[in-house]
Structures are given as C-alpha cells and as structure tokens.
C-alpha cells in the first residue's frame, strides 16, 4: 500500500505559484499522486492574503481569509508548496478574523490551521516518507527561507527529503539562516536594503559551486533568482517540489 492511499489532499497552489510558477504545484501533484494520494484543486482558491496583512491592510485581507476558509473547509489535508503562505494561514488568519470581529470566522480559522500543511511537512509528518523516489543528479544548495523556518517551523524536513534524493550532491550554503531580503513588499518599499541582502545571499549561493539553489518558497527564489540572473552567475533557482518530482524515468507531467 502506498503511503498516501485513501488520502484526499486539497492543493493550495498559492497565487504566486498559480500565476508565475505553475511547474511547482504541478510537481506537487506529481509527487502526491505517485505516493498514492488523491489530489484535488478547488478552483475557488486565491491567495492567503499575506501581502495585504503584512503591509498593514487588514481590512483588505479579510476577504482572502474568508475565501480560504470557504474553499478548504471540507478537506482534511490542505497542502501548499510555500512555507511562507502556509505560515501566514496558520499564524495570521486567526488574527485577521479577530480583527474582523467575526467569531465564527475566528473559530473556523483556528480549526482549519490544524489541517493546513507545508508540502515538506505533509510528506514527512503525515505520509511518513523521506524517500519519495526522486532522482536529481546535480549539485544543489539549499536555502531554508525565514518563514519556513520561523513561522511554519518546518524544521529540517526539507533537508531530510533532499538527502534521500538519489544522485544529488548537496552543498552547504554559507550563512544559510540569514534572510535573503525579499520580505514581500519590503522588496519594493526598501529596495536598496533588500538588494543588499539578496546580493549577499546570491554570492553565498554562487560560492558553493551549485548548479541549483533550492528552497521551499518561490517568492524568495524569485528575488534571489532575479539577482543571480542579473549577475549571470549561472546558478538556477528551483523549488524543492520540482526536485522531488524528478525521477530516473524523468518527469511524467
């Protein structure tokens, strides 16, 4: 029996992945189905609202929170490939519900956060797998991303999944726990500091000699990748899910 047998997973693609990085949620679908899960994509989903909340627009974030609850309330497992968006759901949705002075919504958010998982957590904690049958014969360095570490608190689960990938060469990223400087609207409200931080992260990534910089958050990768690309470093960005989707038979999707 496959680890995911009998489990229906609602995929929360996240707005940025849906729009800008569809290969990541596609990879999630592939890995979860390979492990026996039934994956559904409720199309009424939109965004976790983090960008609104973190910029101080609480009132404007309320509809996103309501929409999340309405979209996903019927599912036991809600899985998204972003420590940041998942962290926002778990850490901020109840706060926004309180701000809306809607007790029903508050209870609903507190309940749904128990069923909301980052992709890496779902694999390791719920399905109990670290080796997902992936194959990726490349030099890779891993950036843990702040919100995965400190808000979603995924711990070393991404590294455990990466270590089980066949053919991979994992290179240690210097100063890995330092923020890359993305920070949502921080990246455009304080562009100079953001770029200074991102440049250090990009330099550290390039210094490892890796072909790929991997992380569990495409937003951070978009920022660091933008600097890596401008600097012609030759380091590619890649989401964790895309490495895990790759097998010796090649990607099936």
């Amino acid at each position, binding site marked *: 029996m496959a680890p995911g047998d009998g489990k229906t997973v609602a995929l929360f*693609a996240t*707005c940025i*992945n*849906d*729009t*800008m*990085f*569809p290969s990541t*949620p*596609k990879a999630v679908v592939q890995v979860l189905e390979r492990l026996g899960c039934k994956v559904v*994509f*409720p*199309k*009424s989903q*939109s*965004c976790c*609202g983090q960008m*609104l*909340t*973190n*910029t*101080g*627009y*609480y009132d*404007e*974030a*309320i*509809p*996103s929170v309501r*929409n999340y609850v309405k*979209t996903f309330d019927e599912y036991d497992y809600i899985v998204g490939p972003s420590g940041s968006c998942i962290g926002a759901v778990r850490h*901020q949705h109840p706060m926004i519900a309180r701000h809306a002075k809607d007790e029903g919504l508050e209870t609903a958010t507190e309940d749904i956060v128990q069923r909301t998982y980052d992709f890496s957590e779902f694999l390791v904690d719920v399905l109990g797998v670290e080796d997902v049958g992936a194959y990726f014969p490349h030099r890779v360095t891993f950036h843990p991303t*702040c*919100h995965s570490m*400190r*808000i979603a608190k995924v711990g070393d689960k991404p590294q455990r999944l990466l270590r089980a990938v066949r053919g991979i060469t994992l290179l240690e990223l210097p100063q890995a*726990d330092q*923020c890359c*400087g993305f*920070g*949502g609207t*921080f*990246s*455009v*409200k*304080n*562009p*100079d*500091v*953001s*770029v*200074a*931080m*991102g*440049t250090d992260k990009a330099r550290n990534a390039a210094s490892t000699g890796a072909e790929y910089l991997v992380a569990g958050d495409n937003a951070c990768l*978009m920022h660091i*990748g*933008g600097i890596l*690309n*401008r600097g012609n470093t030759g380091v590619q960005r890649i989401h964790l899910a895309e490495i895990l989707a790759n097998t010796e038979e090649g990607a099936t999707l």
Partner: protein
Amino acid sequence: MTIDQSRSTRREVDRNRLTPAPPTESYLGMPAFPKGVKSELGNQQLRRNLRHATTTIRGKRAMRQAEVHNWQEMRTAAEQIKNRVGRHLDHYLIQAEEKMTAAGITVHWARDAEEANRIVVDITKSKNTDEVVKIKSMATQETDLNEALEEAGIAAWETDLAELIVQMGHDKPSHILVPAIHRNRSEVREIFLDEMGNWGAPAPADISDDPPELANAARLHLREKFLRAEVGISGGNFIVADTGSLVIVESEGNGRMCLTLPETLISVVGIEKLVPTFDDLEVFLRLLPRSSTGERMNPYTSIWTGVTEGDGPQDLHVVLLDNGRTKVLEDPVGREALRCIRCSACMNVCPVYERVGGHAYGSVYPGPIGSILTPQLRGVSSPIDQSLPFASSLCGACDEVCPVKIPISDILVHMRHKVVEYKKGKRPIPTGERVLFKGLGWMMAKGNRLAGAQTFTKTAGKLFKRKQYIGPIPIPGYAANWTNARDIPMPPAQTFRDWWAEREDTK
C-alpha cells in the same frame, strides 16, 4: 608623555560650548528609512565595521545561550514576570516608591522628557556644580538630557567608552549597547587625538590604534573627571519593587565610578523598568548579559538600596519617566514591547541593521526594537516614524533571540496596520498604494477574480514566449524598485489553474 598641542583646537561649533556639540540634525526631522539608508549602504567602511561587529556578537550570544540548559524556560519566566509588571504597573510603582522613599531616596515623577530634564537640571544646580559624570543611559538619551544640561551651563560627561567616542566625535549613537559600533579603531584614534585635549586630559600623542591603548587613553581622560565630580547621573536596568533596590549592569567600571564617588546621584529610569521582587533578578541577571554582550556575566553589577551611611552618594534621587510609555501600555498588542530590557540582541541578529547601522532609524532605539518602540512612543505622524515598521523583511530572527519573548515581527505588522489606518484617517481619498491594495484585496477575494487577472500575465507570457526574464523597467515606483537590480521572471503563458482544468477535461 608628549602632547601634540597642534591637534587640540576646538571646532568652530564648540567655541562657546562646555561639551562637544552633537550633530545638528534632529531625529524627527530625519528622512523616511528607505531614504536614510542610502548613504549608509554606500559607505563600505561602515558596512565592514558593522558586519564584523554583528557577526562577532551574534556568535558569542548563540554560544552563551547554548550553555544554559533551561534557557527557554527562563525566557518564558522573564516574559511572565514582565507581563505581571506591565499589567499592574501602578501597583508596582507605588510599592517601589514607598520602599525607595523609606530607604532615603527622593523619588520624582516626570510626564515627559522636558519635565525629567528640568528635574535633573534643578537638582544639579542646587549642588552648585557645573559638571556631571554620566553612566550610559538610554532614558537620558531619549530625553536629550545632555543638551538640556549644556543649556543650563552644566557640562555632562559621558563616561562609557563608546559614548565617549560618540560624544568626542560630535556623533550620534548607532547601537544601544555599543553606541560606536559604526567606528573602527583608526577612526577612534583620530577622534581621541583631535578632541580629548579640548575637554580635559589629552590622548598621548604617540597613541596607536590598538584597543588597549585607546581604552587607556579613556581611563586617563576620565579619571580626573570621576575623582572631582560632585553629581553622577545614571539610568537603571531594574528597580526592585519589593526592596526599592536599583540595579545597574555594566562592563568598564565607569558605572561604579559614577554610582559611588559623587555625593549626589540622580537616576532617570523608565516606569517600565520594574521587577516585582529581588528574587526575580535571578532570571534577568542571567538572561541579560548572555543576550547582550554574549558573556556569562557582565564584569560589574551594582545593586543599591537607598542611602548607606559612609558609603557612596548621600543624596539619592530617582526620576520615574513616562515619556510615551503609558501610550504604549494602552495598546494590548503593542504593550508587549514594554518588556524590553535593552539587551540589543534583536539588532545584533537583524540583517537589516547589519547593513544600514543605527542612524537611519531616526531614534535612540535602532534596529527591530526601535522599529516597534519608536513609533509607539512618538506616534506615527512623521515620515520617519511611519517608515520604521516597514524597515524589516519580517525574517523573524529577532523573535528567536529576544530574552523576554517580545513578538517583534507581529508588532511590526501591527504597527504597519496602525500606519495604514492613520493615513486612511488623515486622507479620505486613497493614495496610489491604497488603491493598489484595495484592488488586490478585491481580486484575491475569489478564485475567478484571480483567474480573470491572470489574463494579463498569460498574454505577456504568450507575447514574449522566448524571453525567460524581464530586465529593468524604468517606470518609477514598485516596478523600477524591483527591477533596478533584479530581473523578474517572464510569466508563463499557461497558469496552473488552466493546466489543471485542461488535465481534468482530458481525464
């Protein structure tokens, strides 16, 4: 010792002054954070100094935390003890006042900076002296006491080495624990050679930039001031409510000099600096040094409980300072910042602080704690105060190290909300950003609205199929802010939801 007199010439701004003139720029007049950081980011020397210093101190703190088996339990206890104080501040202040008064201390209350300064000036004047020696104190920096004393004809001498470097350098502090963190040894040597002789014992002319030699120059310069001073001024790390004791932690011994040698001691202490009992010190006096300097214990801790006959100052004053703290207390979310014990761990781990230093924060409290405390103490009406809550990438490194568990990131977001609400109240007609976020909020309320908006990104993706990245976009605002130094990926021609729908159809 040879003295190079040619270097000891007062600057024009100091001609009629008792102490070196501070920079003329006022904190509140400073530009918003994103503008203020430009010169700092461009200063390679400053960035090297800061990186070296913050990296060193971060490593030490982490090592000292790891040595303590019950560190997390101790943080929780500190959080709870400080919450108890903050939530019942009136109770503990009255108790502390009663105990201090019984021990021979004169207790004063000051609503704001001006009132605190007036109290200190009046006491000092009554002692018929024209100078005071000072221990590094955040409260008196907050009230700008030195300038109030200068105006009253009293010279205030900073005696902490870093504060001395700042004062002699006509500079502003850039860190709450190591105020001259932005200076390196050769800059310190230049400042000492240029300035010490103008205000007392000069630095030896053949002094090198070796830190022990520089520290010795400070010892020589300050010794005469300590021995002759009649009034000392301090802050206070803690006031113990149940005994009326004051506590000061320090490293150099300058604090002990100021607390012990003068006949009169005036301590200006924020009203939130209380701990309920003497026993509670076991928690704070272990957390504080390990969190701040990364040492197991700071070299000197002084605890005094009123006047001791024949030992130390015989005239003791404590000024309990509000200056905005009760405003902070009013906000159930923001009040958690009042637990702060001024250790500086948050700024030492902060990646933003590491790159810009303390000056751009426009307050005596830089770094993450400043970004939440300053706009609470001063309100959010000025451009600098409105920008401070946004001066963070919300990486959360500060939350992990704070010894009293202040949820700094959460309060940053809370303060961002307050700024947005303040602006809404000020200007009913939405600005560009508000229109944008209102639109975003509408779009993100429903999946089909997001799908509709994706038409634009898909069109771009189709039009520029072969381009992977977009380079600089010279449209002022967010587009240019992003693309000036970062490429942006070309959006794909097919979104995930379209791909999913296609896949479902073919099943």
